[in-house]
């Protein structure tokens, strides 16, 4: 039997997982048709030059289930997500658009709450929601509410970042504890009750990026490890930059409750989504300074240096385990969890 997702005549959930199967759909189906130098970089957003100004442009759709979860809802996720994608291009996000797809019968009270959250998130981050669209589909044709956000921002002067700029010797910083968002959503969805206070890490990282840029540290890559988690994002960077990556298990910041839930469910936190974290690749000499800069931000208190870029094994990511062993961190084929962001 042929089960290769690309040769299937139907889309399966794994096509949206952010793992290898999504990646293949991107490179085999989408890229050949839409091909242009900007898209083929496969960064979180597009860096464009318009009338002499360098702009970052990005879009993302949110279909999370459940729509409300500890620490947030689909609304702030959608606003912060696009703010972060633009920020990771080394840009200052300014304007975003919002497209709402609502299911007939969805409670207006919940919509009101989501809209208020979106307004609050935009205000806090200092961006404006300047255009939008609303569609309603018959009951059962969508699940409560889907949101698309797009946004633009101005790339900071002299800043050039890309997932393809990682170099051997670069130190890798993660801005805080990993896997909080994915585990929160999973626990909320499955009604798993652990006596814990895990909540989503959804946050706008534009101020953190601003201070990173202002620090003038020699940063090569910024990425937010959302869907697919830190493991998937590092794999993307390793292959975009054609370098090897080594990270250390003992240095990965992980909340106790998140770690415990992962243990119980057999999940690897490296593949679980984050919505308010970034990975920074910085040249060795500037690593400690950048760590301090990130830690000074309200969302960066738990930042750690988790590993480095090496020349060997290009395209591959390895983890040094806490007991001194080593193992590959490969890109997953499909999902560890169903849709969560």
């Amino acid at each position, binding site marked *: 039997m042929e089960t290769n997702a690309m040769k299937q005549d139907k*889309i399966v959930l794994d096509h949206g997982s952010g793992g290898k199967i999504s990646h293949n759909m991107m490179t085999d189906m989408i890229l050949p048709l839409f091909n242009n130098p900007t898209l083929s970089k496969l960064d979180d957003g597009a860096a464009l030059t318009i009338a002499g100004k360098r702009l970052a442009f990005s879009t993302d759709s949110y279909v999370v289930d459940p729509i409300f979860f500890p620490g947030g809802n689909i609304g702030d996720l959608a606003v912060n997500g696009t703010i972060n994608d633009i920020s990771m291009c080394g840009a200052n996000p300014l304007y975003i658009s919002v497209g709402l797809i609502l299911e007939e019968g969805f409670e207006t009270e919940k919509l009101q709450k989501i809209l208020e959250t979106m307004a609050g998130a935009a205000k806090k981050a200092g961006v404006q929601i300047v255009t939008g669209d609303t569609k309603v589909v018959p009951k059962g044709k969508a699940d409560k509410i889907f949101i698309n956000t797009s946004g633009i921002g101005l790339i900071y002067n002299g800043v050039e970042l890309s997932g393809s700029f990682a170099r051997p010797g670069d130190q890798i910083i993660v801005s805080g504890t990993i896997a909080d968002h994915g585990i929160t959503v999973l626990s909320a969805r*499955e009604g798993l009750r652990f006596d814990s206070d895990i909540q989503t890490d959804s946050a706008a990282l534009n101020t953190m990026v601003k201070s990173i840029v202002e620090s003038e540290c020699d940063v090569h890559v910024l990425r937010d490890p959302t869907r697919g988690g830190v493991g998937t994002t590092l794999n993307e960077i390793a292959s975009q930059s054609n370098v090897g990556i080594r990270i250390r298990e003992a240095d990965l910041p992980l909340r106790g409750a998140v770690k415990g839930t992962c243990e*119980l469910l057999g999940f690897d936190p490296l593949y679980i989504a984050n919505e308010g974290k970034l990975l920074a690749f910085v040249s060795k000499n500037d690593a400690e300074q950048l760590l301090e800069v990130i830690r000074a931000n309200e969302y960066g208190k738990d930042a750690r240096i988790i590993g480095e870029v090496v020349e060997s094994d290009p395209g591959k990511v390895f983890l040094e385990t806490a*007991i001194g*062993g*080593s*193992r590959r961190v490969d890109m997953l084929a*499909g999902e560890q969890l169903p849709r969560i962001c």
Partner: protein
Amino acid sequence: MSLKYVDEFRDSNLAKGLIKRIRAMSHKPLRLMEVCGTHTMSIFRHGIRTVLPENISLLTGPGCPVCVTAQKDIDAFIELAGRDDVILATFGDLMKVPGSHSSLSLEKAQGADVRIVYSAFDAIGLATQNPQKEVVFCAVGFETTIPTIAASILACQEQGVTNFSVYSANKLTPPALAALMQTDGVQVDGFILPGHVSVITGTDAYRPVFETYLTPSVIAGFEPVDILSAIERLVVQNENQSPALENGYTRAVSEQGNIKAQQVMHQVFEPCTATWRGIGDIPDSGMGLRPEYHGFDAARRFGIEMPDVPEPKGCACGEILMGLKTPESCALYKKKCTPMTPVGPCMVSSEGACAAFYKYSV
């Protein structure tokens, strides 16, 4: 499982001490087999193979419930999913396992109502929410999950839920170990016995098999320190030629196990012959519904009896889970068979040997 144990048993100094002792003590070539999918995952995730001396090889035994499921049972799940009146509730790991002609994931994309659940109780929830539908739970599991499935059936009976049934492909661990030891060519110098299963069965359940074959055996927990200390004990037993059945997971496993869970399990299920992938039929190694509960038996309710079908050509899953082959020695591994194009269940399940080799090796 209590969470506070996790850190203590992942203590890296403790682990490094164990590794040193194993290296100093172990001289004979040893083939040690783990028979639990969670051990397989833990061994790979913590890089345990990479810290052991070369004379010790770790084999992945029949411990991954999806991997040991016979092709005809997978076909039965797909057949059930194809019925318009059925919502099929399954563990996620079964979704992509290729049956003879399709997989649950493909059936779902083509409109079948297949839902991923975390336990049989989630499936009861689906049954009460969808009274006009029949909810069928795909039961693939060992002693760890069978009591929960039994409890779910008792709960349905009590609450009068009639649109719920179970297709049982459940299996028991000790008969599989015995069948393994009787198979020609199988050479196992020690068993790392499953922690979760043993919480239910207790140490005693393994005694008959141990006394027959005198294979060194240690029940282990799942943290690196648990697994390394089980390996250390197996090395000692082998070097001293003093086979024993030891419990290395005393913080969770007792001699008799969880008697309440065993009672619930035996109230609803009774031993029956089960077909294991690669191994074949093993008497009394399955758990079928007792006659009083036949109303909850999906195979009976829907008249499902699938023919015995050969496993996919070239797939060595069966030999791998007996320790006769390694994934790398399967001709299809990494070529025709990858996690994106799995040929056998061992490449699909996150606990499968081929999937683990593929994911974690260079």
